[in-house]
Protein backbone atom coordinates (compact mmCIF):
# COMPACT_ATOMS: atom_id res chain seq x y z
CA UNK A 1 0.00 0.00 0.00
CA UNK A 2 1.36 3.39 -0.97
CA UNK A 3 1.05 5.56 2.09
CA UNK A 4 2.91 8.58 0.67
CA UNK A 5 -0.21 10.57 -0.08
CA UNK A 6 -1.34 10.33 3.53
CA UNK A 7 1.85 11.81 4.92
CA UNK A 8 0.81 15.40 4.37
CA UNK A 9 -2.67 15.01 5.95
CA UNK A 10 -1.04 13.27 8.89
CA UNK A 11 1.61 15.98 9.24
CA UNK A 12 -1.12 18.61 8.99
CA UNK A 13 -3.15 16.82 11.65
CA UNK A 14 -0.10 16.76 13.92
CA UNK A 15 0.54 20.47 13.35
CA UNK A 16 -3.09 21.36 14.05
CA UNK A 17 -3.07 19.19 17.17
CA UNK A 18 0.04 21.07 18.26
CA UNK A 19 -1.68 24.42 17.70
CA UNK A 20 -4.50 23.13 19.89
CA UNK A 21 -1.93 22.14 22.48
CA UNK A 22 -0.38 25.63 22.38
CA UNK A 23 -3.87 27.07 22.93
CA UNK A 24 -4.54 24.67 25.78
CA UNK A 25 -1.24 25.62 27.39
CA UNK A 26 -2.07 29.29 26.88
CA UNK A 27 -5.41 28.77 28.58
CA UNK A 28 -3.75 27.05 31.55
CA UNK A 29 -1.37 29.99 31.99
CA UNK A 30 -4.06 32.62 31.38
CA UNK A 31 -6.30 31.09 34.01
CA UNK A 32 -3.44 30.57 36.44
CA UNK A 33 -4.28 26.90 36.94
CA UNK A 34 -0.92 25.38 36.03
CA UNK A 35 -0.39 24.09 39.57
CA UNK A 36 -3.92 22.73 40.04
CA UNK A 37 -2.42 19.25 39.76
CA UNK A 38 0.50 19.38 42.19
CA UNK A 39 2.34 16.28 40.99
CA UNK A 40 3.85 15.04 37.70
CA UNK A 41 3.96 12.74 35.79
CA UNK A 42 1.29 11.33 38.06
CA UNK A 43 -1.92 13.29 38.59
CA UNK A 44 -2.95 13.32 42.28
CA UNK A 45 -0.91 10.13 42.62
CA UNK A 46 -2.77 8.35 39.80
CA UNK A 47 -1.25 7.22 36.56
CA UNK A 48 -1.96 10.24 34.35
CA UNK A 49 -4.12 8.19 32.01
CA UNK A 50 -6.17 6.66 34.80
CA UNK A 51 -7.30 9.76 36.70
CA UNK A 52 -10.95 9.28 37.73
CA UNK A 53 -13.24 11.39 35.58
CA UNK A 54 -14.87 13.07 38.60
CA UNK A 55 -11.47 14.46 39.58
CA UNK A 56 -10.65 15.50 36.05
CA UNK A 57 -13.81 17.57 35.47
CA UNK A 58 -13.17 19.91 38.33
CA UNK A 59 -12.25 23.60 38.03
CA UNK A 60 -8.65 24.23 36.98
CA UNK A 61 -7.86 20.51 37.12
CA UNK A 62 -9.80 20.13 33.88
CA UNK A 63 -7.57 22.59 32.02
CA UNK A 64 -4.28 21.32 33.40
CA UNK A 65 -5.05 17.62 33.11
CA UNK A 66 -6.51 18.02 29.62
CA UNK A 67 -3.30 19.85 28.67
CA UNK A 68 -1.30 16.86 29.89
CA UNK A 69 -3.42 14.31 28.04
CA UNK A 70 -3.44 16.43 24.89
CA UNK A 71 0.34 16.73 25.10
CA UNK A 72 0.62 12.96 25.40
CA UNK A 73 -1.53 12.57 22.28
CA UNK A 74 0.67 15.01 20.37
CA UNK A 75 3.68 13.04 21.58
CA UNK A 76 2.15 9.88 20.15
CA UNK A 77 1.44 11.62 16.82
CA UNK A 78 5.04 12.89 16.65
CA UNK A 79 6.47 9.42 17.32
CA UNK A 80 4.36 8.04 14.47
CA UNK A 81 5.33 10.97 12.26
CA UNK A 82 9.01 10.25 12.94
CA UNK A 83 8.52 6.62 12.01
CA UNK A 84 6.57 7.55 8.89
CA UNK A 85 8.85 10.36 7.68
CA UNK A 86 11.99 8.44 8.58
CA UNK A 87 10.94 5.30 6.74
CA UNK A 88 12.75 2.01 7.33
CA UNK A 89 16.02 3.70 8.42
CA UNK A 90 14.17 5.17 11.41
CA UNK A 91 13.24 1.76 12.85
CA UNK A 92 16.56 0.92 14.43
CA UNK A 93 17.23 4.26 16.16
CA UNK A 94 13.62 4.34 17.37
CA UNK A 95 13.99 0.85 18.80
CA UNK A 96 17.21 1.85 20.57
CA UNK A 97 15.74 5.06 22.02
CA UNK A 98 12.61 3.24 23.12
CA UNK A 99 14.60 0.44 24.73
CA UNK A 100 16.79 2.93 26.60
CA UNK A 101 13.68 4.73 27.89
CA UNK A 102 12.12 1.45 29.02
CA UNK A 103 15.29 0.43 30.85
CA UNK A 104 15.61 3.89 32.45
CA UNK A 105 11.94 3.82 33.44
CA UNK A 106 12.17 0.36 34.96
CA UNK A 107 15.29 1.46 36.86
CA UNK A 108 13.38 4.39 38.30
CA UNK A 109 10.61 2.02 39.43
CA UNK A 110 13.12 0.36 41.69
CA UNK A 111 14.38 3.60 43.24
CA UNK A 112 11.54 4.07 45.69
CA UNK A 113 7.90 5.11 45.81
CA UNK A 114 8.55 8.75 44.85
CA UNK A 115 10.12 7.64 41.55
CA UNK A 116 7.45 5.13 40.61
CA UNK A 117 5.25 7.61 38.76
CA UNK A 118 8.19 8.89 36.74
CA UNK A 119 9.42 5.39 36.05
CA UNK A 120 6.04 4.22 34.83
CA UNK A 121 5.67 7.28 32.63
CA UNK A 122 9.12 6.93 31.06
CA UNK A 123 8.58 3.20 30.48
CA UNK A 124 5.26 3.96 28.78
CA UNK A 125 6.92 6.45 26.44
CA UNK A 126 9.66 3.95 25.68
CA UNK A 127 7.02 1.30 24.98
CA UNK A 128 5.25 3.56 22.51
CA UNK A 129 8.54 4.34 20.74
CA UNK A 130 9.44 0.64 20.53
CA UNK A 131 5.98 -0.15 19.16
CA UNK A 132 6.43 2.58 16.55
CA UNK A 133 9.75 0.99 15.57
CA UNK A 134 7.99 -2.36 15.19
CA UNK A 135 5.38 -1.05 12.75
CA UNK A 136 5.94 -2.76 9.42
CA UNK A 137 5.78 -0.94 6.09
CA UNK A 138 6.51 2.76 5.62
CA UNK A 139 9.81 1.82 4.01
CA UNK A 140 10.71 4.90 2.02
CA UNK A 141 11.73 7.95 3.99
CA UNK A 142 10.31 11.30 3.00
CA UNK A 143 12.24 13.60 0.72
CA UNK A 144 14.83 16.16 1.62
CA UNK A 145 15.03 17.40 5.17
CA UNK A 146 11.73 15.91 6.31
CA UNK A 147 13.18 12.87 8.14
CA UNK A 148 15.65 15.10 9.95
CA UNK A 149 12.93 17.60 10.84
CA UNK A 150 10.74 14.77 12.13
CA UNK A 151 13.61 13.59 14.32
CA UNK A 152 14.01 17.14 15.60
CA UNK A 153 10.31 17.12 16.48
CA UNK A 154 10.78 13.74 18.18
CA UNK A 155 13.50 15.20 20.41
CA UNK A 156 11.66 18.48 21.02
CA UNK A 157 8.39 16.86 22.04
CA UNK A 158 10.16 14.90 24.75
CA UNK A 159 12.18 17.90 25.93
CA UNK A 160 9.00 19.97 25.92
CA UNK A 161 7.16 17.35 27.98
CA UNK A 162 10.05 17.23 30.44
CA UNK A 163 10.09 21.03 30.74
CA UNK A 164 6.35 21.04 31.42
CA UNK A 165 6.84 18.43 34.11
CA UNK A 166 9.81 20.19 35.70
CA UNK A 167 7.76 23.39 35.76
CA UNK A 168 5.42 21.57 38.14
CA UNK A 169 7.91 19.49 40.11
CA UNK A 170 10.45 22.30 40.64
CA UNK A 171 7.89 25.07 41.04
CA UNK A 172 9.20 26.00 44.49
CA UNK A 173 12.94 25.61 43.84
CA UNK A 174 14.76 28.94 43.89
CA UNK A 175 17.77 30.02 41.85
CA UNK A 176 18.66 33.45 43.15
CA UNK A 177 15.36 35.32 43.19
CA UNK A 178 13.82 33.29 40.38
CA UNK A 179 11.87 30.11 40.96
CA UNK A 180 12.71 27.24 38.65
CA UNK A 181 8.97 26.89 38.11
CA UNK A 182 8.91 30.34 36.50
CA UNK A 183 12.05 29.65 34.49
CA UNK A 184 10.88 26.28 33.19
CA UNK A 185 7.42 27.73 32.54
CA UNK A 186 9.00 30.42 30.37
CA UNK A 187 11.12 27.89 28.48
CA UNK A 188 8.10 25.61 28.12
CA UNK A 189 6.06 28.49 26.67
CA UNK A 190 8.76 29.53 24.19
CA UNK A 191 9.64 26.00 23.13
CA UNK A 192 5.95 25.23 22.61
CA UNK A 193 5.76 27.94 19.96
CA UNK A 194 9.00 26.73 18.35
CA UNK A 195 7.71 23.18 18.33
CA UNK A 196 4.50 24.29 16.64
CA UNK A 197 6.49 26.13 13.97
CA UNK A 198 8.57 23.01 13.38
CA UNK A 199 5.45 20.86 12.93
CA UNK A 200 3.98 23.52 10.63
CA UNK A 201 7.15 23.48 8.52
CA UNK A 202 7.02 19.67 8.31
CA UNK A 203 3.42 19.90 7.10
CA UNK A 204 4.39 22.57 4.58
CA UNK A 205 7.35 20.66 3.16
CA UNK A 206 5.36 17.44 2.91
CA UNK A 207 2.44 19.10 1.13
CA UNK A 208 1.72 18.53 -2.56
CA UNK A 209 1.61 22.31 -2.89
CA UNK A 210 5.26 22.55 -1.89
CA UNK A 211 6.42 19.91 -4.34
CA UNK A 212 4.59 21.72 -7.14
CA UNK A 213 6.11 25.07 -6.19
CA UNK A 214 8.29 26.13 -9.13
CA UNK A 215 11.93 27.02 -8.70
CA UNK A 216 12.15 30.18 -10.73
CA UNK A 217 15.44 31.78 -9.84
CA UNK A 218 13.75 35.05 -8.93
CA UNK A 219 16.92 36.93 -8.06
CA UNK A 220 15.14 40.16 -7.16
CA UNK A 221 13.24 38.22 -4.53
CA UNK A 222 16.44 37.23 -2.78
CA UNK A 223 16.70 40.72 -1.31
CA UNK A 224 13.36 40.18 0.39
CA UNK A 225 14.53 37.16 2.37
CA UNK A 226 16.54 39.38 4.70
CA UNK A 227 13.53 41.57 5.36
CA UNK A 228 11.44 38.49 6.06
CA UNK A 229 14.07 37.23 8.48
CA UNK A 230 14.01 40.57 10.29
CA UNK A 231 10.22 40.72 10.52
CA UNK A 232 9.97 37.09 11.66
CA UNK A 233 12.77 37.71 14.14
CA UNK A 234 10.78 40.59 15.60
CA UNK A 235 7.79 38.26 15.98
CA UNK A 236 10.02 35.75 17.77
CA UNK A 237 11.29 38.46 20.15
CA UNK A 238 7.67 39.44 20.82
CA UNK A 239 6.82 35.83 21.68
CA UNK A 240 9.70 35.66 24.15
CA UNK A 241 8.66 38.96 25.74
CA UNK A 242 5.04 37.82 25.90
CA UNK A 243 6.01 34.49 27.44
CA UNK A 244 8.19 36.31 29.99
CA UNK A 245 5.23 38.44 31.02
CA UNK A 246 2.78 35.58 31.16
CA UNK A 247 4.93 33.14 33.06
CA UNK A 248 5.63 35.55 35.89
CA UNK A 249 1.92 35.21 36.74
CA UNK A 250 1.87 38.85 37.74
CA UNK A 251 -1.34 39.75 35.97
CA UNK A 252 -1.29 42.76 33.71
CA UNK A 253 1.63 44.97 34.60
CA UNK A 254 -0.11 47.96 33.00
CA UNK A 255 -3.87 48.20 33.11
CA UNK A 256 -4.55 50.94 30.55
CA UNK A 257 -3.94 51.36 26.82
CA UNK A 258 -2.85 53.25 24.75
CA UNK A 259 -1.57 55.21 27.75
CA UNK A 260 0.32 53.48 30.54
CA UNK A 261 -0.78 54.61 34.00
CA UNK A 262 -2.01 57.78 32.33
CA UNK A 263 1.25 58.59 30.53
CA UNK A 264 2.87 57.67 27.24
CA UNK A 265 5.77 56.22 29.22
CA UNK A 266 4.98 55.33 32.83
CA UNK A 267 7.05 56.38 35.81
CA UNK A 268 8.81 53.40 37.34
CA UNK A 269 10.42 54.90 40.43
CA UNK A 270 9.64 53.01 43.67
CA UNK A 271 7.06 55.57 44.85
CA UNK A 272 5.17 55.45 41.57
CA UNK A 273 5.18 51.64 41.46
CA UNK A 274 3.94 51.55 45.07
CA UNK A 275 1.14 53.92 44.08
CA UNK A 276 0.18 51.73 41.09
CA UNK A 277 0.03 48.69 43.34
CA UNK A 278 -2.15 50.48 45.87
CA UNK A 279 -4.97 50.90 43.40
CA UNK A 280 -4.76 47.56 41.62
CA UNK A 281 -7.83 45.63 42.61
CA UNK A 282 -6.47 42.25 41.64
CA UNK A 283 -4.26 40.18 43.91
CA UNK A 284 -1.09 40.83 41.95
CA UNK A 285 1.74 43.18 42.76
CA UNK A 286 3.80 44.48 39.88
CA UNK A 287 7.40 45.58 39.73
CA UNK A 288 9.17 48.23 37.68
CA UNK A 289 10.77 45.50 35.56
CA UNK A 290 7.39 44.00 34.73
CA UNK A 291 6.07 47.41 33.71
CA UNK A 292 9.10 48.00 31.48
CA UNK A 293 8.67 44.53 30.01
CA UNK A 294 5.13 45.34 28.92
CA UNK A 295 6.27 48.67 27.46
CA UNK A 296 8.91 46.81 25.45
CA UNK A 297 6.23 44.39 24.28
CA UNK A 298 4.10 47.34 23.15
CA UNK A 299 6.99 48.91 21.24
CA UNK A 300 7.88 45.49 19.84
CA UNK A 301 4.31 45.10 18.62
CA UNK A 302 4.53 48.37 16.69
CA UNK A 303 7.87 47.34 15.21
CA UNK A 304 6.69 43.82 14.28
CA UNK A 305 3.41 44.98 12.72
CA UNK A 306 5.25 47.76 10.87
CA UNK A 307 7.81 45.28 9.54
CA UNK A 308 5.12 42.81 8.47
CA UNK A 309 3.07 45.48 6.66
CA UNK A 310 6.22 46.78 4.94
CA UNK A 311 7.23 43.29 3.89
CA UNK A 312 3.74 42.60 2.60
CA UNK A 313 3.96 45.58 0.24
CA UNK A 314 7.46 44.63 -0.86
CA UNK A 315 6.57 40.97 -1.43
CA UNK A 316 3.41 41.90 -3.32
CA UNK A 317 5.40 44.16 -5.62
CA UNK A 318 8.27 41.74 -6.06
CA UNK A 319 6.44 38.44 -6.53
CA UNK A 320 3.01 39.73 -7.58
CA UNK A 321 -0.10 39.99 -5.41
CA UNK A 322 -1.59 36.84 -6.89
CA UNK A 323 1.54 34.79 -6.27
CA UNK A 324 1.86 32.48 -3.25
CA UNK A 325 4.21 35.01 -1.66
CA UNK A 326 1.83 37.92 -2.26
CA UNK A 327 -1.21 36.06 -0.94
CA UNK A 328 0.73 34.60 1.98
CA UNK A 329 2.00 38.05 2.93
CA UNK A 330 -1.52 39.47 2.82
CA UNK A 331 -2.71 36.76 5.21
CA UNK A 332 0.33 37.52 7.39
CA UNK A 333 -0.66 41.18 7.55
CA UNK A 334 -4.26 40.39 8.38
CA UNK A 335 -3.18 38.08 11.22
CA UNK A 336 -0.68 40.72 12.42
CA UNK A 337 -3.38 43.38 12.61
CA UNK A 338 -5.70 40.90 14.32
CA UNK A 339 -2.93 40.07 16.74
CA UNK A 340 -2.40 43.76 17.53
CA UNK A 341 -6.13 44.08 18.19
CA UNK A 342 -6.04 41.02 20.45
CA UNK A 343 -3.15 42.61 22.35
CA UNK A 344 -5.25 45.71 23.00
CA UNK A 345 -8.24 43.57 23.96
CA UNK A 346 -6.07 41.60 26.36
CA UNK A 347 -5.52 44.81 28.31
CA UNK A 348 -9.03 46.21 27.96
CA UNK A 349 -10.58 42.92 29.16
CA UNK A 350 -8.09 42.72 32.03
CA UNK A 351 -6.49 39.65 30.48
CA UNK A 352 -9.65 37.62 29.89
CA UNK A 353 -8.44 34.04 29.54
CA UNK A 354 -9.98 33.41 26.11
CA UNK A 355 -8.68 36.67 24.65
CA UNK A 356 -5.18 36.18 26.08
CA UNK A 357 -5.14 32.62 24.74
CA UNK A 358 -6.20 33.80 21.28
CA UNK A 359 -3.32 36.29 21.51
CA UNK A 360 -0.91 33.40 22.18
CA UNK A 361 -2.30 31.43 19.24
CA UNK A 362 -2.06 34.52 17.03
CA UNK A 363 1.61 34.94 17.92
CA UNK A 364 2.35 31.31 17.12
CA UNK A 365 0.54 31.62 13.78
CA UNK A 366 2.50 34.76 12.89
CA UNK A 367 5.77 33.00 13.63
CA UNK A 368 4.80 29.99 11.53
CA UNK A 369 3.60 32.10 8.63
CA UNK A 370 6.78 34.19 8.72
CA UNK A 371 8.87 31.02 8.66
CA UNK A 372 6.78 29.59 5.82
CA UNK A 373 7.24 32.78 3.80
CA UNK A 374 11.01 32.66 4.36
CA UNK A 375 11.16 29.05 3.15
CA UNK A 376 8.92 29.77 0.18
CA UNK A 377 10.93 32.87 -0.77
CA UNK A 378 14.16 30.91 -0.58
CA UNK A 379 12.72 28.19 -2.80
CA UNK A 380 11.36 30.64 -5.33
CA UNK A 381 14.62 32.54 -5.49
CA UNK A 382 17.06 29.64 -5.65
CA UNK A 383 18.72 28.95 -9.00
CA UNK A 384 16.41 27.08 -11.35
CA UNK A 385 18.80 24.13 -11.51
CA UNK A 386 18.44 23.49 -7.77
CA UNK A 387 15.52 22.01 -5.90
CA UNK A 388 14.98 19.01 -8.10
CA UNK A 389 17.47 16.77 -6.40
CA UNK A 390 15.89 14.10 -4.32
CA UNK A 391 17.62 12.67 -1.31
CA UNK A 392 14.75 10.35 -0.67
CA UNK A 393 16.55 7.21 -1.57
CA UNK A 394 20.02 8.17 -0.46
CA UNK A 395 21.64 5.65 1.84
CA UNK A 396 18.81 3.17 1.65
CA UNK A 397 19.60 -0.54 1.44
CA UNK A 398 18.94 -2.02 -1.96
CA UNK A 399 16.43 -4.43 -0.47
CA UNK A 400 14.34 -1.56 0.83
CA UNK A 401 14.39 0.18 -2.53
CA UNK A 402 13.25 -3.02 -4.19
CA UNK A 403 10.40 -3.36 -1.72
CA UNK A 404 11.66 -6.57 -0.18
CA UNK A 405 10.93 -7.19 3.51
Amino acid at each position, binding site marked *: MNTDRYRFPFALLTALATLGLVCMGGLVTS*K*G*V*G*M*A*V*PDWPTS*FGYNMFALPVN*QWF*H*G*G*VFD*EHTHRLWASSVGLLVVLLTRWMGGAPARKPLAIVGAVEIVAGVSLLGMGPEWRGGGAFLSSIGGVVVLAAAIPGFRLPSEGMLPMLAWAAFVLVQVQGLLGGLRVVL*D*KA*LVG*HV*TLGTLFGLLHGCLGQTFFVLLGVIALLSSPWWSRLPVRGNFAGRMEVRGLLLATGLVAVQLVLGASMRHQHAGLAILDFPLAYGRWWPLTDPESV*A*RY*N*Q*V*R*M*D*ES*TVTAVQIQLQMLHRLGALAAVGAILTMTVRLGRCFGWASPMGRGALVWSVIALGQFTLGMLTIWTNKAADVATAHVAGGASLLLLGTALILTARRLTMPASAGTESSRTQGLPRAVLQGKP
Partner: protein
Amino acid sequence: MKTLVPIAATVIAAALPLSAAEINGKVTLKGTPPPAAVIAAVKADANCGKVAVGEAKSRVYVVGANGALANTVVYIKKGLEGKTFPAPATKPEIDQKGCMYYPYVAAVMVGQKFDVKNSDPFMHNVNATPKVNKGFNFAQASQGQVNEKVFDKPELGVRFACNVHPWMIAYVNVLENPFFAVTDESGAISIKGDLPDGKYTIEAFHQKAGTQVQEIEVKGGKATVDFAFDVKS
Protein backbone atom coordinates in the same frame (compact mmCIF):
# COMPACT_ATOMS: atom_id res chain seq x y z
CA MET B 1 5.99 47.33 106.77
CA LYS B 2 5.03 50.23 104.51
CA THR B 3 8.60 50.42 103.17
CA LEU B 4 8.72 46.68 102.45
CA VAL B 5 5.91 46.78 99.88
CA PRO B 6 7.65 48.99 97.29
CA ILE B 7 10.90 47.11 97.86
CA ALA B 8 9.18 43.78 97.23
CA ALA B 9 7.52 45.18 94.13
CA THR B 10 10.87 46.40 92.81
CA VAL B 11 12.48 43.01 93.46
CA ILE B 12 9.67 41.17 91.67
CA ALA B 13 9.77 43.58 88.73
CA ALA B 14 13.52 43.10 88.38
CA ALA B 15 13.17 39.33 88.50
CA LEU B 16 10.58 39.30 85.70
CA PRO B 17 12.06 40.76 82.53
CA LEU B 18 8.73 40.72 80.76
CA SER B 19 5.42 42.01 81.96
CA ALA B 20 1.87 42.02 80.70
CA ALA B 21 1.44 44.87 78.28
CA GLU B 22 -1.16 46.06 75.85
CA ILE B 23 -0.78 48.11 72.70
CA ASN B 24 -3.98 49.57 71.35
CA GLY B 25 -4.84 51.72 68.41
CA LYS B 26 -6.53 51.81 65.05
CA VAL B 27 -5.67 51.45 61.39
CA THR B 28 -7.61 53.64 59.01
CA LEU B 29 -7.66 54.32 55.31
CA LYS B 30 -7.87 57.83 53.91
CA GLY B 31 -9.29 58.24 50.47
CA THR B 32 -11.53 55.93 48.54
CA PRO B 33 -10.09 52.73 47.13
CA PRO B 34 -11.60 51.28 43.96
CA PRO B 35 -14.83 49.40 44.74
CA ALA B 36 -14.53 45.70 45.53
CA ALA B 37 -15.12 43.58 42.45
CA VAL B 38 -17.64 40.74 42.57
CA ILE B 39 -15.94 37.39 41.91
CA ALA B 40 -18.50 36.01 39.46
CA ALA B 41 -16.48 32.83 38.93
CA VAL B 42 -17.53 31.52 42.35
CA LYS B 43 -21.21 31.30 41.42
CA ALA B 44 -20.36 30.21 37.88
CA ASP B 45 -18.31 27.22 39.01
CA ALA B 46 -20.33 23.99 39.06
CA ASN B 47 -19.13 23.00 42.52
CA CYS B 48 -18.47 26.34 44.17
CA GLY B 49 -21.84 27.70 43.06
CA LYS B 50 -23.54 25.14 45.31
CA VAL B 51 -21.65 26.08 48.46
CA ALA B 52 -20.97 29.79 47.92
CA VAL B 53 -21.75 31.95 50.93
CA GLY B 54 -23.37 35.17 49.71
CA GLU B 55 -21.78 37.16 46.93
CA ALA B 56 -18.03 36.65 46.87
CA LYS B 57 -16.10 39.89 46.52
CA SER B 58 -12.49 40.88 46.25
CA ARG B 59 -11.00 41.50 49.70
CA VAL B 60 -8.10 43.62 48.55
CA TYR B 61 -9.47 46.53 50.61
CA VAL B 62 -11.98 45.77 53.34
CA VAL B 63 -12.96 49.06 54.91
CA GLY B 64 -15.30 49.42 57.87
CA ALA B 65 -16.96 52.45 59.43
CA ASN B 66 -15.00 55.70 59.47
CA GLY B 67 -12.32 54.30 57.22
CA ALA B 68 -11.33 51.43 59.53
CA LEU B 69 -9.00 49.20 57.54
CA ALA B 70 -9.15 45.43 57.96
CA ASN B 71 -6.50 42.83 57.11
CA THR B 72 -3.57 44.91 58.28
CA VAL B 73 -0.80 43.16 60.18
CA VAL B 74 0.61 45.26 63.01
CA TYR B 75 3.71 43.94 64.74
CA ILE B 76 6.77 44.90 66.77
CA LYS B 77 9.53 45.20 64.24
CA LYS B 78 12.46 46.43 66.35
CA GLY B 79 13.30 46.67 70.02
CA LEU B 80 13.36 42.98 70.89
CA GLU B 81 16.71 42.10 69.36
CA GLY B 82 18.54 39.34 71.19
CA LYS B 83 15.40 38.07 72.87
CA THR B 84 13.82 34.79 71.96
CA PHE B 85 10.22 33.84 72.38
CA PRO B 86 8.54 30.46 72.33
CA ALA B 87 6.02 30.02 69.55
CA PRO B 88 2.45 30.36 70.83
CA ALA B 89 0.76 27.08 71.60
CA THR B 90 -2.43 28.25 69.91
CA LYS B 91 -2.96 26.83 66.43
CA PRO B 92 -4.54 29.22 63.94
CA GLU B 93 -6.67 27.75 61.17
CA ILE B 94 -6.93 28.73 57.54
CA ASP B 95 -10.18 27.39 56.20
CA GLN B 96 -11.39 26.90 52.65
CA LYS B 97 -15.12 27.41 52.73
CA GLY B 98 -17.47 28.26 49.88
CA CYS B 99 -14.42 28.46 47.62
CA MET B 100 -12.91 31.31 49.61
CA TYR B 101 -10.14 31.37 52.19
CA TYR B 102 -10.95 32.40 55.76
CA PRO B 103 -9.25 34.40 57.04
CA TYR B 104 -7.99 36.33 54.06
CA VAL B 105 -5.00 37.54 56.07
CA ALA B 106 -3.52 35.54 58.92
CA ALA B 107 -0.43 35.93 61.08
CA VAL B 108 1.65 33.31 62.85
CA MET B 109 4.94 33.34 64.65
CA VAL B 110 8.01 31.57 63.34
CA GLY B 111 7.70 27.95 64.41
CA GLN B 112 4.01 28.29 65.28
CA LYS B 113 1.98 25.44 63.83
CA PHE B 114 -1.19 26.22 61.94
CA ASP B 115 -3.86 24.15 60.23
CA VAL B 116 -5.06 24.35 56.67
CA LYS B 117 -8.56 22.95 56.42
CA ASN B 118 -10.93 22.14 53.59
CA SER B 119 -14.54 22.62 54.63
CA ASP B 120 -15.86 22.21 51.11
CA PRO B 121 -17.20 18.87 49.87
CA PHE B 122 -14.78 18.82 46.95
CA MET B 123 -11.10 19.21 46.23
CA HIS B 124 -8.89 22.27 46.64
CA ASN B 125 -5.15 22.45 46.22
CA VAL B 126 -3.16 24.58 48.65
CA ASN B 127 -0.27 26.25 46.87
CA ALA B 128 1.87 28.36 49.20
CA THR B 129 4.54 30.40 47.41
CA PRO B 130 6.79 32.07 49.96
CA LYS B 131 10.00 33.77 48.87
CA VAL B 132 12.02 33.02 52.00
CA ASN B 133 10.38 29.98 53.54
CA LYS B 134 9.90 26.59 51.95
CA GLY B 135 6.79 26.47 49.80
CA PHE B 136 4.36 23.62 49.33
CA ASN B 137 1.52 22.56 47.09
CA PHE B 138 -0.80 19.72 48.03
CA ALA B 139 -4.32 18.64 47.29
CA GLN B 140 -7.07 18.40 49.88
CA ALA B 141 -9.54 16.07 48.26
CA SER B 142 -12.03 15.44 51.03
CA GLN B 143 -14.26 17.58 53.18
CA GLY B 144 -12.85 18.20 56.63
CA GLN B 145 -9.28 17.33 55.68
CA VAL B 146 -6.77 19.21 57.82
CA ASN B 147 -3.04 19.54 57.19
CA GLU B 148 -0.68 21.00 59.76
CA LYS B 149 1.99 23.39 58.50
CA VAL B 150 4.70 25.59 59.94
CA PHE B 151 7.10 28.23 58.62
CA ASP B 152 10.55 28.63 60.10
CA LYS B 153 11.61 32.09 58.89
CA PRO B 154 9.99 35.51 59.23
CA GLU B 155 8.25 36.63 56.05
CA LEU B 156 5.40 38.99 55.26
CA GLY B 157 2.62 38.22 52.82
CA VAL B 158 3.16 34.53 52.03
CA ARG B 159 0.65 33.91 49.31
CA PHE B 160 -1.69 30.92 49.50
CA ALA B 161 -3.61 30.07 46.37
CA CYS B 162 -5.91 27.37 45.11
CA ASN B 163 -5.17 26.81 41.44
CA VAL B 164 -8.26 24.66 41.00
CA HIS B 165 -10.22 27.82 41.79
CA PRO B 166 -7.69 30.53 40.95
CA TRP B 167 -9.58 33.41 42.58
CA MET B 168 -8.95 31.83 45.99
CA ILE B 169 -6.11 33.76 47.59
CA ALA B 170 -4.99 34.25 51.19
CA TYR B 171 -1.90 35.64 52.87
CA VAL B 172 -0.04 34.34 55.88
CA ASN B 173 2.42 36.62 57.67
CA VAL B 174 5.22 34.98 59.62
CA LEU B 175 6.63 37.09 62.43
CA GLU B 176 9.67 36.87 64.68
CA ASN B 177 7.91 37.53 67.98
CA PRO B 178 4.45 36.97 69.39
CA PHE B 179 3.59 40.69 69.54
CA PHE B 180 1.37 41.09 66.51
CA ALA B 181 -2.26 41.52 65.53
CA VAL B 182 -4.35 41.46 62.37
CA THR B 183 -7.05 44.10 62.19
CA ASP B 184 -10.67 43.29 61.47
CA GLU B 185 -13.30 45.65 60.04
CA SER B 186 -13.12 47.78 63.19
CA GLY B 187 -9.49 48.53 62.31
CA ALA B 188 -8.65 48.00 65.98
CA ILE B 189 -5.12 47.13 67.00
CA SER B 190 -4.87 45.00 70.10
CA ILE B 191 -1.50 43.50 70.90
CA LYS B 192 -1.28 41.82 74.28
CA GLY B 193 1.58 39.96 75.84
CA ASP B 194 4.56 39.97 78.08
CA LEU B 195 6.21 42.97 76.55
CA PRO B 196 8.51 44.97 78.84
CA ASP B 197 8.30 48.72 79.02
CA GLY B 198 10.55 50.42 76.55
CA LYS B 199 10.85 51.91 73.08
CA TYR B 200 9.91 49.89 70.01
CA THR B 201 9.47 50.23 66.31
CA ILE B 202 6.05 49.06 65.27
CA GLU B 203 5.02 48.39 61.68
CA ALA B 204 1.68 48.15 59.96
CA PHE B 205 1.66 46.10 56.78
CA HIS B 206 -1.25 45.92 54.36
CA GLN B 207 -0.93 43.79 51.26
CA LYS B 208 -1.96 46.64 48.97
CA ALA B 209 -1.76 49.85 50.95
CA GLY B 210 1.86 49.16 51.85
CA THR B 211 3.78 49.63 55.09
CA GLN B 212 4.00 52.30 57.73
CA VAL B 213 6.40 52.44 60.65
CA GLN B 214 6.16 54.31 63.95
CA GLU B 215 8.22 54.57 67.10
CA ILE B 216 6.30 53.86 70.29
CA GLU B 217 7.06 53.71 73.95
CA VAL B 218 5.40 51.19 76.22
CA LYS B 219 5.01 52.78 79.64
CA GLY B 220 3.42 51.01 82.56
CA GLY B 221 2.43 48.24 80.16
CA LYS B 222 0.43 50.58 77.92
CA ALA B 223 0.93 52.17 74.55
CA THR B 224 -1.28 53.61 71.87
CA VAL B 225 -0.58 53.81 68.16
CA ASP B 226 -2.68 54.75 65.14
CA PHE B 227 -1.88 54.24 61.48
CA ALA B 228 -3.53 56.02 58.57
CA PHE B 229 -2.91 54.80 55.03
CA ASP B 230 -3.57 57.14 52.16
CA VAL B 231 -4.84 55.60 48.94
CA LYS B 232 -5.89 57.67 45.97
CA SER B 233 -8.33 55.95 43.66
